[in-house]
């Protein structure tokens, strides 16, 4: 460890954060520590902000293909306050409830932010998952049509939130895979 912990956090704040998020006290303190290391020194933690690039380059998010979407969904006005970071950690923690994770997963996967996951979103998701730009058109269109065949229940060629939720309810490892340890201090 070796770093000194800067206890700028008041006890009531800690209690409040613990009550409002799914994080434990230790995790909150760890995130607090990481946050202070990244933000400019001397600033009070409640006023300091991080840019999206700084959060994207955290070790936990560095290799995530969806890191730009994650940062976009959880930030406000393109910056992260400490509470935004806590909110993000809470959604991705182990104890978070499934409905919350599904809610945010939907927002992250909705690339064009129109409230639906349509074909364009699906294609972009597949390209990110395969991490290569030369994917044949056939593969993309085939895959998107199969996904929509399976999950689009009312035949409008898009996945609404309830259809997405229904599809995720069948997946046993969604809860396991939608987890990030942001406090790797």
């Amino acid at each position, binding site marked *: *460890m070796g770093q000194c*912990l800067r*206890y700028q956090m*008041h*006890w*009531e704040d800690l209690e*409040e*954060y613990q009550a*409002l998020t*799914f994080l434990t006290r*230790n995790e909150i*303190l*760890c995130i607090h520590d990481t946050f202070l290391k990244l933000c400019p020194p001397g600033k009070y933690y409640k006023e300091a902000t991080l840019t999206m690039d700084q959060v994207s380059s955290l*070790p*936990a998010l560095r*290799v*995530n*293909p969806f890191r730009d979407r994650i940062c976009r969904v959880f930030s*406000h006005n393109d910056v992260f306050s400490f*509470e*935004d970071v806590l909110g993000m950690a*809470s959604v*991705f923690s182990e104890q978070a*409830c*499934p*409905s919350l994770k599904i809610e945010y997963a*939907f927002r992250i996967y909705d690339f064009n932010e*129109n*409230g*639906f996951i349509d074909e364009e979103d699906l294609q972009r*998701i*597949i390209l990110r*998952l395969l991490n290569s730009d030369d994917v044949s058109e056939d593969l993309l269109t085939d*895959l998107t049509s*199969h*996904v929509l*065949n399976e*999950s689009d*229940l*009312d*035949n*409008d*060629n898009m996945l*609404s*939130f*309830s259809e*997405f*939720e229904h*599809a*995720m*309810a*069948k997946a046993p490892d*969604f809860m*396991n*895979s*939608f*987890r*990030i340890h942001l406090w*790797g*201090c």
Partner: protein
Amino acid sequence: MAQSLSFVFNVLDTPEDQGQEPSPYDESEMHDSFHQLIQEQSQWAAEEGLELQQMGSGTSGSDHQALLGPEGALAHSTATLRILASMPSRTIGRSRGAIISQYYSRTVELRRRASRPQLGDLGRLARPSLRLYDLELDSTALEEEEKRLLLVKELQGLTVAQRDHMLRAMPLSLAEKRCLREETRIARGRQGHRGLPSCCSRLRYACVLALHDLGLGLLSALHVLTPWRYALKRIGGQFGSSVLSYFLFLKTLLAFNVVLLLPLLAFTVGVQAAFPPEPLGSVPAFTGLELLTGGGRFTDTVMYYGYYSNATLNQLCAAPPDGGPCIPEAGGLPYNMPLAYLFTMGAAFFITCITLVYSMSHSFGESYRVGSTSGAHAITIFCSWDHKVTQKWASCLQHDNIRTRLKELLAEWRLRRGPRSVCGRLKQVAVLGLVWLLCLGITLGCTVAVYTFSEFMIESPVPAEPEGALLALPLVVCLLNLVAPYLYRCLAALERHDSPELEVYVAICRNLILKTVILGILCYHWLGRRVGALKDQCWENFVGQELYRLMMMDFIFTLLDTVFGELVWRLVSEKRRRGRPEFDIARNVLELIYGQTLTWPSSPPLPRLGVLFSPLLPAMQIIKLVLLFYVKKMSLMANCQAPRRPWLASRMSTVFISLLCFPSFLGAAVFLCYAIWQVKPSSLCGPFRTLGTMYEAGKVWVRRLEKGGPGVSWLPWIHQYLVEKTFPIYLVSALLLAVIYLNIQVVKGQRKVICLLKEQISNEGEDKIFLINKLHSVYERKEKSRAGRMQEAAPPPALLTEDQDT
């Protein structure tokens, strides 16, 4: 087709019908309010910065049956999309107002419940029904502030724990949650400290964080300890799930053997090693050949059945005056070896049986349950990325895995049997029949060879000195086991199956028949002929040694085959420019099952009383499996290529475990019972020396218990009524069958209901689009008629002035 909404929208068709149908006047009012709604939503949508596209008619796939409106246009206009986007079911994911009203409704429902609700039930409300959205459908469209106040008021009515749980689960930002919490906090005495934490709590936190780091470090170390995790991921990513299933099966077998070995080690081998019997005669010197033959030096060790004493260990007997039974002295715990031997075998056998049946039913359940996720694309795309991964190489591995998986999924979906002509089908059937005949012929040939050779070994005098000669029979068997599967593979290249999965199943069948028949001959040879031939010697030892020899030979041949055989095949294939060979799953899996069956008590008509006669065989098997994993993996990476036709092996592990359970293990159960109940143990060695059958040890003990006293009388009672009689077994099997049948029927019924519900949902989607299109057409008509009326109203003032003039 049951439809819940069943009103008739008769605007165009019957405008003259008064009464129940809406009058033109009413209709325009109704229409105007929708017009207002559309305007509001478009304003709101513009504020939020939505970008809605127009859907071209090409986007709907050929399977979609989108309903065409009266205009015949399939494209949704911008206004339609806006309406769709602002429907209650759609806005859940986005607008704060919708979230607040949704949670308001949930809170109200929570408070209305009479009993204290389970907090765990709160989070799963999927598609909220319109009933709950009283705030949204209220004609006095409440402002967001007012909704907030209502929510706050409701939250105040909950207990602290419920309120916190509700707040935690809300998909709002933390700052907003804090505001809500502030507003709902009833002024009560502040608990806890104020200001900065004190010195000792600082120290405590430092310790806690250090421990947390240690815990994280240990967790990552634990991941390293999980055997072969990285290797399996690499194999899966590079070669697909079919080859991976073989290696997973190997891992499962390893687990089974460990489970089998532990009680044996604890209760029989360990104890016997602690109390060694007196050696009979001189101990021969150790030569290297023992490792192969299992004889010589190893004969009188814990490896074999003959070593185990038939007396009660550690029982200090006072010398009885008239040679009667041993009177135990005080001190020392008596350990009845024969009983321990039998019961440990029984317990290990039982545990393995239960584990096998459980894992088999689990796999079956996974594949066939309602809404199973095997082969589901949506799940793969949304859930396959593990966000916990932080290393670059691990993420590359994940990308590879996902790519392979997606290709396999697509291939499985694309597998369509092209319509074949009758001629083509007949030709295929003929080729199949021919190949099967040839394979069965080869099997017959091998069987006859083994039989004649074993008879020859019996007829010639049994040599005890040249130990190498004992290896002849295992050598012949292993050679045949090696050559025949290659012949099968060459023949299988003639038939062309559509599905690679079917090819693997057919190959498995053929290999299974071969191995079953050969093992059957061997077992007849041992138990039928050898027992007779070795009348006054310890035949159990001999059988154990034979098993050991067979296992060793099998292992050596597998190694040689893997290292050299696949190398040679690869060189030959590369010369012929056919690319590298593919990994032969069927042959390798059957080899594994064969090796395992040598270890277990076996199936009819294959008596493999391996464990019964050589308790350390599971340990050998474990070592063999570990070595085999590394050798196979190396050979795979060096010599083989990924299957040309990728296919998803989702049911393979179920098939393998079923093969392990049914031919292999279940038959073992039957035969082991036969051995215990019927066959006479040899009179010179082993824990059952003096008894007629091995089972008598149990009977003797039970009789002794009966005399023991009333405290343990339940055990003999169980023995008498449940074990000796056959009725309870029939009853239990009948109950089991009934439960299975009921479950199958329930699953069928659930599937039907799901189909009906899906149909209903798609019908409602069509209804929605139809209604929107109708509304648009009515609105356009209204606009046109209004424009027309305004045009007509313009000229009349000119006419009036003219009239006034005249």
